[in-house]
């Protein structure tokens, strides 16, 4: 079969042409080769001295390898990330000139073209580094596995960086800073404590003999985040009035449904005695909470008015309409889906997880641990629901809904802190009661503060439920407005 340029994505061809015409490309190529050659020459110059001092030359392999990967990383950031990001931003700055709005390509095709062009450039850069990696291998001090692992992590890092760059590019310049601050607020404590908590509570405690499980967890979370950024990019590239969050909602559902597969795979990792059922249930439980948090996060950005284009896609049968409500654009559907995930997770905790004291049984986590994780989802729901209520109640139309939620994220922890301080004043709690202000740090608490953990674990669902009660009229109104025009 003859392969012509017609077989390739138009955006890929355009991007590569623009890359090769750009001055940055030539400059980066030159710097990349210069840096690596310079490293080789410096190492060569030092070799004589090292041998004269009776040192081995085995340290030179890792040095060259590290230098090659670092220069590869810098070149990737410059060409794949910054260059692509700025071009993407420029293309989207004027909606009238944004080709994603008026050409016949779907957002998926456009994003795929952008991504593949970045990957193509990354592979090209890596191929320029390969001769130096081979030299590094022959200089000794490195095994093939070391090199493969190093390159693999560099590639995963590049994948992540490219997704983030495209995400920032697709936001456009209008709301860029605000949205990034919002994401930082939402994710800073959560991501940091998740990683720390998983490591301290679940991994080291169970004394797993090798690094395979942490590696699996890291890869799982890395690909979950990369996938989520990808579907967010798709949403940002879709027309504002299209059913733009549908891919993200489907992603969260798929994440929850496919998570048992990951649990199943972990159970089959050699040398790790993990009980099958417990691991699969735990994985599904965690995935439900993650999906709930992601749904709440997206719902904070969504509109509350259903446009005619979404209405046209709405099925006419009542049951299908309800299903469509959960995956269609609109904060109401997002919050409802997040609650469904939370309730499934809650049911799993109440019915299946062991009670306190059974933490070291066959289950990877105890009921208290599970409640702690669950509180993430409830807190996310709480923030989004209050944001929606305030935005609708005070008719803050000129401000985006996410801005209200961002303010809430700052305000609610303070409120909870004040409430807790007032309620438990004089009971002699240690500094850890400060942690009551946010669930994001609960996971890192030690066992001495279990009482506090319990309080917070009940605070979050209670407040989330109360906020849901307030948000319900708006959610119901959105559901009623989502009907096919022929039914109106």
């Amino acid at each position, binding site marked *: 079969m003859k392969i012509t340029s017609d077989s390739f994505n*138009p955006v890929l061809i355009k991007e590569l042409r623009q890359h090769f015409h750009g001055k940055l490309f030539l400059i980066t190529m030159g710097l990349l080769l210069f840096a690596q050659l310079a490293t080789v020459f410096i190492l060569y110059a030092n070799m004589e001295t090292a041998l004269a001092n009776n040192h081995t030359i085995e340290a030179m392999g890792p040095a060259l390898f590290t230098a090659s990967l670092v220069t590869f990383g810098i070149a990737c950031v410059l060409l794949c990330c910054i260059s692509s990001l700025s071009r993407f931003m420029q*293309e989207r700055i004027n909606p*009238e*000139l944004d080709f994603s709005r008026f050409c016949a390509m779907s957002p998926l095709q456009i994003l795929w073209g952008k991504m593949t062009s970045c990957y193509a450039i990354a592979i090209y850069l890596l191929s320029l580094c390969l001769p130096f990696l081979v030299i590094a291998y022959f200089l000794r001090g490195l095994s093939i596995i070391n090199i493969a692992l190093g390159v693999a992590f560099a590639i995963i890092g590049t994948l992540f960086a490219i997704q983030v760059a495209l995400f920032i590019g697709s936001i456009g310049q209008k709301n860029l800073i605000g949205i990034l601050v919002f994401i930082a607020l939402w994710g800073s404590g959560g991501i940091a404590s998740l990683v720390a908590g998983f490591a301290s509570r679940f991994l080291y405690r169970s004394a797993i003999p090798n690094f395979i499980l942490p590696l699996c967890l890291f890869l799982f979370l890395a690909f979950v985040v990369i996938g989520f950024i990808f579907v967010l990019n798709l949403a940002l590239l879709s027309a504002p009035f299209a059913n733009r969050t549908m891919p993200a909602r489907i992603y969260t559902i798929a994440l929850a449904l496919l998570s048992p597969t990951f649990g199943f795979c972990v159970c089959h990792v050699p040398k790790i005695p993990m009980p099958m059922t417990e691991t699969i249930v735990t994985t599904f439980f965690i995935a439900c909470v993650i999906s709930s948090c992601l749904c709440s996060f997206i719902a904070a950005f969504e509109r509350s008015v259903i446009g005619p284009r979404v209405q046209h896609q709405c099925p006419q049968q009542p049951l299908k309409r309800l299903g469509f409500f959960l995956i269609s654009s609109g904060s109401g559907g997002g919050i409802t889906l997040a609650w469904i995930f939370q309730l499934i997770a809650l049911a799993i905790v109440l019915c299946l997880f062991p009670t306190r004291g059974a933490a070291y049984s066959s289950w990877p986590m105890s009921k208290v641990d599970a409640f702690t994780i669950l509180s993430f989802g409830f807190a996310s729901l709480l923030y989004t629901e209050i944001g929606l209520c305030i935005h609708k109640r005070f008719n803050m139309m*000129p401000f985006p809904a996410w801005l209200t939620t961002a303010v809430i994220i700052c305000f609610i922890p303070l409120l909870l802190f004040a409430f807790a301080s007032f309620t438990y004043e004089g009971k002699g709690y240690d500094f850890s009661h400060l942690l009551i202000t946010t669930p994001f740090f609960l996971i890192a608490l030690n066992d001495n503060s279990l009482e506090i953990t319990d309080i917070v674990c009940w605070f979050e669902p209670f407040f989330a439920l109360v906020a849901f009660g307030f948000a319900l009229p708006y959610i119901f109104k959105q559901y009623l407005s989502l009907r096919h025009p022929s039914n109106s």
Partner: protein
Amino acid sequence: MKIKIEHLIRRFGKKNAVNDISFEFESGNIFGFIGPNGAGKTTTIKIMATLDQPTAGDVFFDDISTIAYPEKVRRIVGYMPDSLPAFTDIKVWEYLDFYARAFGLKGETRRKTLADVEAFTNLTGIREKFLSTLSKGMKQRVSLARALVHNPQVLIMDEPAAGLDPRARIELLSLLKILAEQGKAILLSSHILSELQDICDGAVIIEQGRLLASGPLDHLLESAVQNRLASTPPMAIPQPTAEGGGAAPTPPPLVMASPLIAITIRILRDAEQVRLKLMEHPSVKQIDINSPLELVVQFDGTDEDIPPLMASLFAAGCPIVGFSKQSLGLEDVFMRITTGEVQ
């Protein structure tokens, strides 16, 4: 192809940018879209080009709804915004090639289409130039070429001639004429009404989001003539009084149902003599003396009645050196219909 805009409404908060607009036009026609700044032209055009969605109403391209099938509409419509292409590090042919690929053109078909479009828009000589180095006029050509690259049946253009030099403007308008002759439906928004009048078959006039008038250009001009008489009653012909000379103006006459024909008559001398002679004619309703050597006659009749009227003047020895039937221009129509208020 028939393009129907049906009860289009677009609200931004409490403001109605477009307020229940309906009109239609067909293939082979150039339709002017006229209105003051902030009238809602660009909003309407964006909805038609699927860049925005209406709050209510819809736009149909031969029964294809822009709301239900925006992807299909994008293949039918070529949209030329008033902004210029801003891609960096890309040559003219690469830019057009990208859009051709994006619309699914492949292989030899794509190459031939690109060659044709480049030749039509006179870009062949600059195809190897970078887009960022082009002048505004050249970028407009590239923008037009981009809108044509998938051979759309409908062209929607927002201020395509804005900022162009006279030569580029004339060339652009002649290209549009050719495209209309090829059977494309063209909706053209512009502020240069005299040029629109030369090339348009019809026009839509909007103000403050509301439709003021729409239809074929002849009908618009004709109805504007009627509206002029209805809205600004002319001074009546002074009637000689019994005392012999009093030419006091009488109250305005009632609105006339049929349109009047305005005739400009240029004379060598004796304007008063000519005026008196004209007053004898029963079909003459009003005479304005613009200057000592020019009169404007409002004449209630058809084109068939003009030669006998002029013949009677010649027979009476009036020193006439020329005459012409006066017609209203699009600018006159626009000025009379719109109020100039901004939302």
